[in-house]
């Protein structure tokens, strides 16, 4: 059959196949090179996978739909830099599955919210935003303080992430590799075999929700918020360095 305008137009099946082919080529041309171009992910130190407690907090962040109103992506624009801080690096979300970049800012961007406010502020604010910011339109999440944090499945959650490439360790070899890459302190936190004790220990020592007697969902969510955007020490790098990765 000759491939003419007419023969494609009158043959729905052929047209669907060719449209898909065209879109596939367009997509592949844009996406595939990112996998083998060396400069896609910046080479910076300090970025590590989330600890078990932070990872549970991230799960709660996803469950509560925070991403629908808060982006985690600071773009390289003057106004964004002045309001939120240094623009986000690709490397900063390399252990995120899925990404929580978001596309809607009803509330402010949260990519660098870590360390900006105290734990107590986050707890008060999540419990009822209007207690601290009267003009806020964010919903209240009072159940975060009431719900005990479920963490019996945290090891399985880490195993699932390990399957998609996050370097949590389970065998001795993996642990040794992590010590080499992240240092002993971080490597201990990434050990799946110690996930539950690590989670409890971090919540106990930092006491994110202000109540040492209970381990709540608030502990986990605040732990996650407090680490956002804090892993890279930008004072170590010349600004121009990051531009060489584009």
């Amino acid at each position, binding site marked *: 059959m000759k491939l003419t305008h007419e023969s494609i137009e009158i043959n729905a099946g052929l047209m669907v196949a060719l449209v898909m082919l065209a879109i596939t080529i367009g997509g592949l041309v844009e996406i595939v090179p990112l996998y083998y171009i060396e400069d896609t992910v910046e080479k910076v130190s300090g970025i590590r996978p989330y600890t078990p407690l932070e990872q549970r907090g991230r799960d709660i962040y996803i469950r509560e739909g925070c991403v629908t109103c808060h982006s985690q992506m600071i773009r390289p624009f*003057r106004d964004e830099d002045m309001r939120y801080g240094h623009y986000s690096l690709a490397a900063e979300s390399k252990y995120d599955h899925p990404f929580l970049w978001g596309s809607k800012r009803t509330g402010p961007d949260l990519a660098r919210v870590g360390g900006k406010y105290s734990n107590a502020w986050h707890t*008060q604010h999540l419990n009822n935003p209007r207690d601290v910011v009267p003009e806020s339109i964010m919903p209240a999440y009072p159940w975060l303080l009431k719900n005990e944090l479920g963490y019996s499945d945290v090891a399985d959650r880490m195993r699932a992430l390990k399957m998609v490439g996050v370097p949590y360790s389970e065998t001795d070899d993996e642990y040794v590799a992590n010590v080499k890459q992240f240092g002993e302190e971080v490597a201990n936190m990434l050990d799946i075999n110690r996930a539950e004790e690590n989670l409890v220990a971090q919540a106990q020592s930092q006491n994110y929700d202000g109540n040492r007697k209970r381990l709540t969902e608030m502990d986990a969510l605040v732990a996650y918020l407090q680490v956002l955007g804090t892993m890279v020490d930008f004072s170590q790098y010349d600004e*121009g360095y990051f*531009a060489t990765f*584009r």
Partner: protein
Amino acid sequence: MAEQLQNKAVQTTGHAWDGDLQEFNNPLPSWWLWAFYASVLFALVYWVLFPAWPIGSDYTKGLATATFKNDQGEEVTMGWNSRAAFIQEMQEGGDALKQKAYLQKVSAASYDEISRDPEMTAFAESLAKVVFADNCAACHGIGGTPPIVGLYPNLRDDDWLWGGTFGQIEHTISQGRIGFMPAFGKVLDTGQVDQLAHYVLGLSGHEVDPAKAKLGEVIFQGEEGGCHYCHTQSGKGLYSQGAANLTDAIWTVADVTGQNDLKDKVKLVSQVIDEGIQREMPGWSKRLSEIEIKLLTVYVHSLSGGE
């Protein structure tokens, strides 16, 4: 139309529905075609000028360039990319240049010079107001007055926990503060806490039970409570500890002025003594630039007149 068809001026595809509904086969409008060719041409120019085609583990960088100064002050020129263009804009863009002269002037000036110069003060306050709204207002409230007494210090009143001079304010902003008072409920019984509360309220001129206040004074000034170590024997507080002045009418933790009955006031103060205080202000030196902290200091100082 029917006339045209009869004259064969318009070709049809030969399809016909419902007897006379035909499909025309007109050429594309010429404006559309030219727009199409123009966008192809645009793409070709774009490929030459900007990063475009992947080649192995690299890509074509394009002929356009961006120039900026690195940390050593040397000029760097590299192939145009959004990040290099961003640095260039932060250094040389119209808005950046408009601010630059002011920023340099304020940066070189001392706090005294800034506060004596109305132009520099106005600039500092207008810029710092925005920085304050983005970073500080979440706790201290827009304009420096937090919505609820007790959670975070009011910056508009005349009282300072850590000192209100330019130097002290700058230190507070850049390094942060940990406000801590031990929970005395662990070492004192309820009666003693009650006596202490009466004494403390008496310090600021409340009419309290003199007998209880007398007993409270012994705890406050003695080893048992040890309150005087931080709040001083006169009760005026100590900036180095962030200990509040207890002799004035300003209350930052217990909302004493919001209560009418002495009983309620005593209850609130007792609660603070019983549970202690743990408050934290994060340090901002990593997040804000030196000049931003300086401008904020001027702004915060101006909110209440400072010290």
